């Protein structure tokens, strides 16, 4: 009796474990292609329109042959682009924006129509009037209208967990909506069903570029409102106008996109895309070489790049990464108030050697603030030369002939390559007598210290959100607060006032000239910033991949619209 009782108890427990296990596995492990988010009936209500003939949001077809096999090394947190500053891949493929950016083969870029087929800008640079396309439908069959634009912009400012409010900073009434003193966003008006007028508080030359940012993707007002906080989480309710619909997401496993047959620009060539989530880069490498992937981002396997270039010379795709790696010096920390010290540090670092050693020389040494590929990039400016002897002389002149100690602040969450850069910089500084100590911070402390303006020197990379120098110079030298939260603490308020004012210069040539002058002043006269290099971004693709093109800024998020596979 007693024996059986205790047996039964043990068995019950084991069983309950097993049942929990099995219950779950029916849902997703046996059929890995179905999405595991609690789709419930939401899919049928908003996304399940069978007449769409494929590309139903939230539904992964059984047959995934011909799907493009892509990979990411970490899962996304959301597809709601208003709530993320980095997970752009899904939004770039399932949503459209009012305008787009196009880069021609010479590297010059221009703003092209997208959901807005035409626009006018008032002469004072304050009013933008957009005429929207009238033939666009969302993936759920709803029509795209001006109302959706209004909804989307207001939501950007008010949605819980929104992190891209900055994008609309210049729009009239934005501040009031954020702080709750206004209900409606004054600066965005619906003139008719297909016309929207946006008013800015001050002229902002980069505004059109800004509208190309992924964060300003347009949502369906009806579906998004209905989805609530499941928008971006549950594929079936995450609706856009883009070339693909969001078909499935099983967390930490894969993301699935399916062709939107009714895409207003014409359906994409690919029937769909499966994006596997593989954190281990060696695993990714082996998968690619085994034919389990159609693409691999060599940025995540920097160290294998040489081997890939050798092994798959015909399968490499590259594009400039429009972003600059820089080293900071904090004006509030001794002895960086001294111009000679800053110049000495600029000269002490052999940037070409670092680029060669860690990135096989793929990229270029930068001399300013705006990297190669960005509007405003200046290839004829003053160069900083690698000159350790000169650096020593300058240090001696500044009274630091015996050197000094400084901190190199490392963020423990950054990649090994960044850490290696620090290790090399440390050695190079040692060669001119500066003792640089690498101090490791965990990510949050690093961010917080940096924000307080007290972080020591650090190496980081800023990649373009949109194609304008404003996005760079204003971020670091826009005003006292901007330079403090980057732990630079540049003291010249006059120069920073010019940086702010440049945003309002309506004449494009004048504006760019001012930006160049400021760049020269900041980097070469004041030595307030040490530009390191910008890099070329490489991908390897499988032989069947055709027409793959990285996005203009060279970020890792891929756009699959133009891609096709040969069989």
């Amino acid at each position: 009796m007693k024996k059986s009782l205790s047996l039964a108890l043990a068995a019950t427990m084991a069983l309950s474990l097993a049942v929990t296990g099995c219950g779950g596995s029916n849902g997703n492990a046996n059929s890995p292609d179905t999405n595991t988010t609690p789709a419930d009936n939401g899919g049928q209500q908003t996304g399940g329109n069978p007449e769409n003939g494929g590309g139903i949001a939230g539904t992964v077809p059984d047959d995934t042959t011909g799907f493009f096999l892509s990979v990411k090394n970490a899962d996304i947190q959301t597809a709601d682009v208003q709530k993320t500053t980095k997970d752009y891949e899904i939004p770039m493929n399932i949503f459209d924006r009012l305008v787009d950016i196009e880069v021609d083969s010479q590297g010059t870029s221009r703003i092209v129509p997208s959901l807005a087929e035409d626009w006018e800008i008032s002469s004072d640079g304050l009013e933008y009037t957009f005429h929207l396309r009238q033939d666009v439908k969302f993936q759920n069959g709803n029509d795209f209208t001006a109302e959706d634009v209004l909804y989307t912009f207001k939501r950007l400012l008010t949605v819980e967990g929104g992190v891209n409010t900055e994008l609309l900073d210049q729009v009239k009434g934005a501040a009031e909506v954020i702080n709750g003193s206004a209900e409606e966003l004054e600066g965005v008006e619906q003139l008719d069903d297909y016309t929207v007028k946006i008013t800015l508080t001050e002229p902002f030359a980069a505004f059109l570029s800004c509208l190309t940012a992924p964060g300003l993707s347009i949502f369906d007002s009806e579906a998004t409102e209905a989805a609530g906080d499941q928008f971006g989480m549950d594929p079936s309710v995450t609706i856009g106008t883009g070339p693909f619909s969001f078909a499935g997401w099983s967390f930490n496993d894969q993301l699935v996109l399916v062709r939107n047959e009714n895409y207003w620009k014409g359906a994409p060539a690919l029937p769909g895309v499966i994006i596997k989530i593989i954190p281990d880069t060696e695993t990714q490498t082996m998968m690619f070489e085994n034919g389990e992937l159609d693409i691999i981002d060599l940025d995540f396997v920097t160290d294998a790049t040489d081997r890939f270039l050798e092994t798959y010379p015909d399968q490499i795709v590259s594009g400039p990464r429009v972003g600059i790696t820089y080293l900071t010096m904090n004006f509030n920390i001794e002895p960086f108030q001294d111009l000679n010290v800053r110049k000495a540090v600029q000269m002490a670092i052999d940037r070409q050697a670092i680029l060669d050693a860690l990135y096989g020389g793929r990229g270029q040494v930068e001399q300013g603030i705006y990297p190669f590929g960005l509007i405003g990039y200046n290839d004829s400016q003053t160069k900083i030369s690698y000159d350790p002897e000169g650096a020593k002389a300058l240090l001696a002149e500044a009274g630091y002939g015996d050197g000094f100690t400084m901190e190199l602040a490392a963020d423990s969450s950054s990649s090994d390559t960044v850490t290696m850069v620090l290790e090399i910089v440390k050695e190079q500084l040692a060669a001119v007598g500066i003792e640089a100590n690498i101090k490791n911070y965990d990510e949050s402390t690093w961010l917080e210290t940096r924000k307080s303006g007290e972080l020591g020197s650090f190496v980081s990379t800023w990649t373009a959100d949109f194609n304008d120098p404003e996005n760079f110079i204003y971020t670091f030298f826009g005003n006292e607060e901007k330079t403090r939260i980057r732990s630079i603490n540049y003291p010249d308020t006059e120069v920073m006032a010019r940086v702010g004012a440049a945003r309002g210069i309506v004449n494009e040539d004048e504006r760019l000239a001012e930006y160049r002058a400021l760049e020269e002043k900041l980097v070469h006269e004041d030595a307030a910033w040490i530009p390191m290099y910008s890099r070329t971004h490489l991908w390897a693709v499988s032989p069947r991949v055709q027409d793959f093109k990285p996005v203009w800024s060279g970020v890792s998020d891929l756009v699959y619209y133009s891609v096709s596979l040969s069989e």
Partner: protein
Amino acid sequence: MFSKVLKRIAISIPVLIGVVLAIFIMLRIVPGDPATTMMGEHVNPAVIEKISREMGLDQPMYVQFFKYVANALKGDFGTSYRLNRNVTQIILDSFPHTVKLSLLAALVAWIIGLSAGIIAAIRQNGLLDRLFMGCALMGVSMPVFMTALILQYVFAFKLKWFPVSGFDSFRAMILPAIVLGWNSAGSIARMTRSNLVEVMQNDFIRTARAKGLRENGVIVGHALKNAMLPVLTMMALQISSMLSGAVLTESVFGVPGIGRLAVNAIETRDMPLLQGTVIFTTILIILGNLIADLLYNVLDPRIREGI
């Protein structure tokens, strides 16, 4: 017997509360404001303050704790900062993968561990002993990620017997299970060996020999069952080390399990998710201990009778 079971369960309860409290406190002494770290670069302070309020981070810690426990009892571990989804739901989605991986790995561990342990015990201090123990211990003696990588390289990449990653077919599960199982096999082998050696010194083994059993018969018929009882209890410890090992194995092989969740949670500093994951795995371990204890009770006639 029944009261004993109840007592055993009762002892688990303070442990469980302790676990929740420990994790709760540990995660609350994180330097830096969680709201800031989760929101990143593009947001203004007003928003951060609002978020902080919404997460209840402005309340005293004991209030947060009791709220958390009250919700946890209802099966609600809160909402993930980053994924904006119910933590319980996320965990339950990942759980089956980890369970499958762990069960398969346990099987591997037992096969390797038991056979190595038995052979080692029989050939105690001989060449075979060293060889088999060495083999079993190899799995623990390399960092898990290297074992994984090397097996992957040889069997998936070079020989192409298995897919490099994934967890959607039985074939894909084999390599991760071997890596994880091998990692635990060492301790099972070691324990089997020392238990067997120990049991082989018992008087009843001498009796068995004296009655005319040959050495293999002695081991299989008389020593093994006695030796296995303590090894069985180790199953519970294995659950713990499996779940630890799963963190790395899942990352290397791209298995979307609980271990990955924990890593995600740490990388994205997602406190509710980390909290939920740790508490959930801990409950599993406590439950595993309980089951092992009960099984032990069932199988050992001495304890069964309450002696």
